[in-house]
């Protein structure tokens, strides 16, 4: 069991800066993120994109901003659980929370801060009526164990790298692989496209382009998919299959957090912005792009501000008997948990005459 003062779900810029603000108040933090590295979208999606509205930085690459934040919070020695998704939360008798990930790692803290940004990225599910009824009964959005498909009939849908790469891989595993794509053009890596064409020519992949899977058939278990061709003359065809694997990339979703009993509005967590960004569950805060309130702006800048305000309230919650007086870092410096101390040199502090 990992124990900490403040458990932060989401290691994007807002979550990282919350570590700094918490550190100034002597609160230790641990962060959970489904991604394998800190930085959230900034690291995962647009590390090389410049950001122009971070105060004090006329221009900063998203990846560099994350590096700077990691440097800034280093003295506060945050812990990280990366590559795992926060799955469940349980309130304890002492008022603390236990958050467990999809891999079973448990964390306990008196306050939980959700800084989950757009949420976790989940497979995009095609809008086929009743598809959820076939999930794990022939339909899967992620291939975890290719052996499941040995000597089976498989239909893959999609036109990107995942669809191409898995078609190529499963061509040597499955009994039959069909790749269905809406267009003739594929947007994956050129060598993958060429390999699929090659395998199609020798009959190892059944390539079906200008077509879409529009319906699923089977009693309690998938046994066929209905494919609709763009060419009306070809119409529709029913294709027998054991598995259907739609691979249409990822889209942001709130994920399991949506089932924690938090008040959700417009796909975001509602908070009390008049005071401290606390949710409807005392002790659980939401900051950054994941929250919503009247006047909300989804800016990194606002996430930083919310982190600072939230930490004051969280400190009071953890230390109800202590009175905290806010200090400027120019006055008190920054004292890390690692024994480091940063403070202004005397000669740069002007005296008032």
């Amino acid at each position, binding site marked *: 069991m990992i124990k900490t003062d403040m458990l932060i779900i989401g290691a994007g810029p807002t979550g990282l800066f919350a570590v700094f603000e918490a550190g100034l108040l002597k609160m230790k933090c641990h962060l959970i993120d489904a991604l394998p590295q800190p930085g959230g979208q900034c690291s995962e*999606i*647009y590390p090389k994109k410049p950001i122009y509205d971070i105060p004090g930085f006329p221009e900063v690459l998203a990846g560099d901003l994350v590096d700077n934040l990691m440097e800034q919070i280093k003295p506060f020695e945050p812990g990280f659980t990366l590559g795992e998704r926060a799955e469940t939360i349980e309130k304890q008798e002492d008022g603390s929370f236990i958050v467990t990930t999809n891999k079973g790692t448990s964390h306990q803290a008196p306050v939980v801060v959700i800084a989950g940004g*757009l949420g976790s990225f989940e497979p*995009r*599910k*095609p*809008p086929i009526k009743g598809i959820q009824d076939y999930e794990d009964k022939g339909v899967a959005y992620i291939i975890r164990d290719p052996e499941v498909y040995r000597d089976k009939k498989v239909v893959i849908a*999609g*036109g*990107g790298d995942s669809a191409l790469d898995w078609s190529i891989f499963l061509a040597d595993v499955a009994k039959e692989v069909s790749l269905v794509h*809406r*267009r003739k053009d594929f*947007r994956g890596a050129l060598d993958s496209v060429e390999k699929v064409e090659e395998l199609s020519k020798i009959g190892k992949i059944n390539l079906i382009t200008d077509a879409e899977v529009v319906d699923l058939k089977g009693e309690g278990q998938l046994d066929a998919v209905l494919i609709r061709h763009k060419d009306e003359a070809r119409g529709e065809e029913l294709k027998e299959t054991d598995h259907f694997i739609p691979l*249409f*990339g990822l*889209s*942001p979703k709130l994920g399991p957090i949506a089932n924690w009993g938090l008040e959700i*509005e*417009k*796909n*975001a967590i509602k908070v009390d912005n008049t005071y401290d960004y606390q949710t409807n569950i005392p002790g659980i805060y939401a900051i950054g792009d994941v929250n919503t309130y009247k006047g909300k702006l*989804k800016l990194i800048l606002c996430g930083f501000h919310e982190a600072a305000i939230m930490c004051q309230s969280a400190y009071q919650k953890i230390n109800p008997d202590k009175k905290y007086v806010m200090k400027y870092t120019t006055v008190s410096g920054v004292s890390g948990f690692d024994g480091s101390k940063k403070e202004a040199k005397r000669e740069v502090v002007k005296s008032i005459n």
Partner: protein
Amino acid sequence: MSDIKITIIDRQGEAHTIDAPTDMNMNLMEVIRSYELAEEGTIGICGGMAMCASCQCYILNFEHMLPEKSIEEEDMLDQAFFVEDNSRLSCQIPITEDLEGLEIRIAPALE
């Protein structure tokens, strides 16, 4: 202030002819959101980075000089649903005077 007229058909099929400012550095997705023509949380989820296709729309008239699709937009549309030949991501269409009289329909939302 220089505005153009754009007609936007919402997800319920209702047409709205609105004034869109050309001098505020807005894109079509932002205009749709500012007029609340699609439920908040169902459009522009990624903030306009061509990452989610929640702002997909169909271009209904073609006399306008729309910007070429970027690789990112092509990639996203390739993985999106309800895609037609006239699909575009509205977040990738800046509001300029060239769009006077543009007519679009907002694509269905995903659950």
